């Protein structure tokens, strides 16, 4: 196939705080968009062909919330669309539209204002099958606990390994100005705190963050016309597990969606041995265990993720840094904007603009996002610099 290459030419963000009470979600979207368009050197009303927003009505608290997407991002009376999914899925759509030749420049937006949601646990509950809701399970995140136990069972990972993820990511975040939930932790602090959903303690469950993120993508030709900073999308794919069927049937302790998404993304990017052909990864870690599980499914854990973790393999100064940004445990959970900031952090690394968390010699990265519980949708991207 001789389709065009797709580059990220602009990034913008606003927030990364537990609460941004002085701006509306629309104003946050504007702030992120203006920064991204300035970075990409494009005029929103003239140069951008398509606008895509990833959002979900119940997070917004607005039905048919796609109607609110165009205005703040410059998409009024232009092709604007909304996808109910994680921000990285929107990148996948933008990638296809550009690759197909339909558009040259596409802006992708996702935002989250969990501080505006007073009943976030109830929204999670609402995402369960109506039949399951009848059980009145007090904490709708019980699924994460079930998954963690199932993962530990097959992998041999122990409680300590999960706690080590919290220590690694939350401490690393202290170097990242975008990580509002960073803290210096010790293994004992994590292990000695009361479980929220066994085996997970509060340190192992990501806290919420308000953010707006905008990323501008372009065809190679336009990328070279507008900017000199190009980060290439070498491959991107996604997959959804049961969810319309029954969560009960989910492959517990595994993430087939992530496995399948990654294999196709690697194929597109021409990777046969991803751990040797990429330099670092930003992956799902809204729960401690899920980072280890993600590494297994991404094929980035020869011999077992928990054993490599023990040896410091995934540390920022290790052989293969994972979540050098501090991950969601430090940066936070930003609803549908989560995958987009993982991508943002990876782009900053490749551009050499990651500041305190900058890695040496970062040329190619894997970004993996997951959306759940309970939908279990995963998206994986492989990105590189020139």
């Amino acid at each position, binding site marked *: 196939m001789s389709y065009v290459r797709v580059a990220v030419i602009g990034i913008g963000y606003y927030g990364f705080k537990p609460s941004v009470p*002085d*701006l509306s979600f629309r104003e946050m979207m*504007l702030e992120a968009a203006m920064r991204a368009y300035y970075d990409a050197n494009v005029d929103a009303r003239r140069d951008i062909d398509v606008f895509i927003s990833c959002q979900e009505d*119940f997070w917004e*608290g607005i039905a048919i919330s796609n109607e609110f997407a165009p205005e703040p991002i*410059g998409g009024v009376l232009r092709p604007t669309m909304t996808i109910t999914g994680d921000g990285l899925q929107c990148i996948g759509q933008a990638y296809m539209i550009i690759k197909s030749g339909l558009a040259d420049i596409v802006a992708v937006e996702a935002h989250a204002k969990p501080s505006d949601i007073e009943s976030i646990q109830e929204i999670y509950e*609402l995402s369960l099958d109506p*039949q399951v809701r*009848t059980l009145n399970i007090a904490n709708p995140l019980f699924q994460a606990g079930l998954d963690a136990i199932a993962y530990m069972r097959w992998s041999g990972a122990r409680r300590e390994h999960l706690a080590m993820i919290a220590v690694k990511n939350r401490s690393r975040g202290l170097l990242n100005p975008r990580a509002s939930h960073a803290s210096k932790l010790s293994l004992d602090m994590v292990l000695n705190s009361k479980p929220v959903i066994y085996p997970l303690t509060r340190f192992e469950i990501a806290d919420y963050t308000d953010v707006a993120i905008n990323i501008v993508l372009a065809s190679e030709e336009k990328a070279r016309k507008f900017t000199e900073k190009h980060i290439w999308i070498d491959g991107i794919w996604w997959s959804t597990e049961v969810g319309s069927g029954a969560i009960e049937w989910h492959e517990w302790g595994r993430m087939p969606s992530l496995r399948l998404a990654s294999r196709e993304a690697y194929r597109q990017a021409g990777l046969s041995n991803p751990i040797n052909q990429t330099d670092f990864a930003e992956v799902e870690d809204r729960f401690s265990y899920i980072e280890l599980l993600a590494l297994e499914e991404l094929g980035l854990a020869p011999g077992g993720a928990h054993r490599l973790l023990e040896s410091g393999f995934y540390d920022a100064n290790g052989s293969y840094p994972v979540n050098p940004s501090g991950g969601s445990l430090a940066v936070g959970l930003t609803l549908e904007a989560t995958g987009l900031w993982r991508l943002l952090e990876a782009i900053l690394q490749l551009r050499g603009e990651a500041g305190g968390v900058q890695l040496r010699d970062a040329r190619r990265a894997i970004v993996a996002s997951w959306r759940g519980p309970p939908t279990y949708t995963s998206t994986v991207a492989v990105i590189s610099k020139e």
Partner: protein
Amino acid sequence: MRSIRLPGMYLREEDLRKLVGVIEYTPRARYSYSAGQALSEFLRGLREGRILGRLCPSCNRVLVPPRVYCEHCYTQTTEWVEVPGTGRVESVVVSYIGTARERLEKPEIIAVIRLDAPGYGRDSFDFAGLFHKLCGVTEDDVKSGRVIGLRVKPRWKPLELRTGSILDIECFEPEVVESERA
């Protein structure tokens, strides 16, 4: 409107709910929206009996309800402009049912008000505008089409009852009452 009672067995709500195959669930979704820079100031203005808009320095339109950006020019708006609050009815409807499809005792008259504000052509498709209820007009006035284009002004709540809400305006009412017009 009269309803005719037809013969036969009537199903009651409670009978339906007793059926196996129905799962009842009431979502508990609660939010507290941050109004943000533009709307917060707008709401403060309403409490003072003022309708505030934002000026786009590029197309010179005054946006009401205000935004910190102009959606057409994609430029940040630069200053606050008070508009008089007067305007004319762009479109108007009579609504006979409530959100749960229950018949309202008194029908509601809801209008789009095209506010007097700088930067727009007289009949331009875009305008500074608000949704609100209309008072001082009848159902028949609306149905006859006489209300379209009618000059209106806000009827403010007494100062001590205002809270910084769109409800600080009770309704929009005709600028000139019928008796004065004659």
